[in-house]
């Protein structure tokens, strides 16, 4: 990463942080409903991997904690926020909500709410890319606890047997809702679980975006060069509760404090300040600019957008006018 890249990365991670914090407020104001899973603390994961990948070209799929992954692929933050507001201008036209952001144009294949569901979908996307001779790869971001679903093991096996271009990124934040990883999972280091499938698997610090980027570059190159699947484990931490309905009472304050000292944004910022690339004032100005953009453009857009029409409740259930429904094209 060049210094200019690093500055952009800093801005994008700070944007991700502020975007999510604003979602929190909007939820408290009851502008956003349903389940809301936020990303603060984990920014370096999506950021570092997508820096190494080709956003908008490579195919990305994930779980319900999906706003930032969508934005990293190129989704318009305005459309993401409008989706959270349930508006017709939202990325899923208000039908999906926070857990189901989709932006197929930018190859963001969606957020899914069933834990473990995306594993085989990602392998399937990889299968299709391979059949089509595309140089794009499939990237699946999921959590640590998701690896206890059978789909994890089934998908790794198939991906290896069929040599599929899929990168599995495990954002290991040590918890599945309120259950700490060692209470639910026999092997805490997730990369070790992959060894049984003869798939390269590494674990790195998910709080340092440069480390994530370096590891992801190797991973992405491996997959793109036709060598088959790869597993990348990123050690990270979410600052807030699992979702807005989670009190977060199960975590030790010491543990939270320790992780907050390794904040991905602050670490990169301090590094850039030390290298003389930016000043703290630059950073503050950057932050102010972001807050202004969120309030003045993104929230405004979401607020002012229309809601879907109730008359269109049944739209999108099935294809419109598919000729084969009537026995073929006429």
């Amino acid at each position, binding site marked *: 990463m060049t210094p200019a890249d690093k500055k952009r990365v800093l801005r994008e991670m700070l944007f991700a942080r502020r975007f999510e914090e604003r979602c929190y407020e909007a939820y408290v104001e009851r502008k956003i409903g*349903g*389940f809301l899973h936020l990303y603060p603390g984990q920014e370096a994961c999506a950021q570092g991997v997508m820096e190494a990948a080709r956003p908008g070209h490579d195919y990305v799929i994930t779980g319900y904690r999906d706003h930032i992954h969508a934005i990293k692929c190129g989704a318009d933050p305005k459309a993401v926020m409008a989706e959270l507001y349930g508006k017709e201008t939202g990325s899923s036209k208000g039908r999906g909500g*926070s857990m189901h952001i989709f932006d197929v144009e930018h190859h963001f294949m969606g957020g899914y*709410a069933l*834990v473990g569901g995306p594993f085989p979908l990602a392998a399937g996307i990889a299968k299709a890319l391979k059949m089509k001779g595309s140089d794009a790869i499939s990237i699946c971001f999921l959590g640590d606890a998701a690896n*206890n679903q059978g789909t994890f093991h089934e998908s790794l096996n198939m991906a290896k047997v069929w040599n599929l271009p899929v990168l599995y990124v495990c954002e290991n934040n040590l918890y599945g*809702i309120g259950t700490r990883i060692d209470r639910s999972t026999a092997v805490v280091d997730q990369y070790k679980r992959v060894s049984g499938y003869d798939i390269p698997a590494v674990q790195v610090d998910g709080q340092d975006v440069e480390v994530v980027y370096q590891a992801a570059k190797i991973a992405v190159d491996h997959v793109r060069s036709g060598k088959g699947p790869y597993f990348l484990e990123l050690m990270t931490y979410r600052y807030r509760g699992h979702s807005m309905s989670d009190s977060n009472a199960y975590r030790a304050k010491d543990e939270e404090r320790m992780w907050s000292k390794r904040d991905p944004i602050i670490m990169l910022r301090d590094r850039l300040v030390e290298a003389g690339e930016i000043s703290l004032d630059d950073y503050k100005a950057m932050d102010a600019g972001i807050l202004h953009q969120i309030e003045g453009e993104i929230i405004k857009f979401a607020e002012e957008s229309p809601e879907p029409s109730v008359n269109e*409740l049944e739209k999108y259930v099935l294809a419109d006018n598919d000729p084969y429904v009537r026995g073929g094209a006429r």
Partner: protein
Amino acid sequence: MAAIMYWEALQRAQDEEMARDPLVIVMGEDVGVAGGTYKATKGLYDKYGAERVIDTPISENGFTGLAIGASFIGVRPVIEIMSVNFAWLAMDQIFNSAAKVRYMSGGQLTAPVVIRSPGGTAHQLGAQHSARMEKVFMGIAGLRVVTPSTPKQAYGMLKAAIRCNDPVFINEHELMYNMKGEVPDGDYFHPLEGSEVARPGRDVTLFGYNISVHWCLEAAEFLATHHGIDCEVVDLFTLSPLDRAGIKASVSKTHRAVIAEEAEAPVGVGSEVIAIINEECFFELDAAPLRVSARNVPIPYNHKLEKAAIPSAKDIVHAVLKMFGK
């Protein structure tokens, strides 16, 4: 009799049964240390320990199968599946193991598990967290399906289900855990078969179950006050087997039927009740029975669309008025 909340009724039932029988266990995601997503297992972990109040990995088919296996030789598991939407993942073990093992072993084995899970549309949880699955479960031979509409039923049915020698699926609702109601003080076992007249009436029977019983009662109140129509409300607390005799008795008295369900109409409770009416008392009818149900769509996130997708007491009122030509 004390008024307690629905979740407290479930908690009390499990606590009492665990105290009585050391082979009763509780398992599910976040049921232990966290006390359950809807608090139904609150305090049990501290009282009975990690061997009996088990926080499971996110492996629904795996832990459901494990519980079924344990039940083969005497353990009495109560499985909590956080949301019925996740029960799809456990369907193989529920359908292929629990429901069939008694029959295919010629009666040698049984799987006395209780599976509790909330279904239904809460507030804007989106398509993958708002489904109802009772129509799926009630179509499985070898599985009992009940769905409590009050804290009393929740308490008494869970107690009975734990002691019953068949697999029992208890269909709960995300919006009902904080509902308050009277629950008997001592041991109380609610039948796992039958139905209950929740409000006697003469003119039309409103069939409901779980949350829709409350919509029916609300509609009945309104229709009595504003239209002079006297509705009988029948609570179909058992969905499998459906209470043929109860359905017949009420329709033979009122000669009219409206069935209210939160789920989509196809292959649902309404279809089944109407089929039973046809078989049992067709010639008693004064009007064609009507179904009040959800629109046939995945549940949308947007609040207006969500509201439009699922039925309400108002829709029941409209159906009754239509039936009476008003």
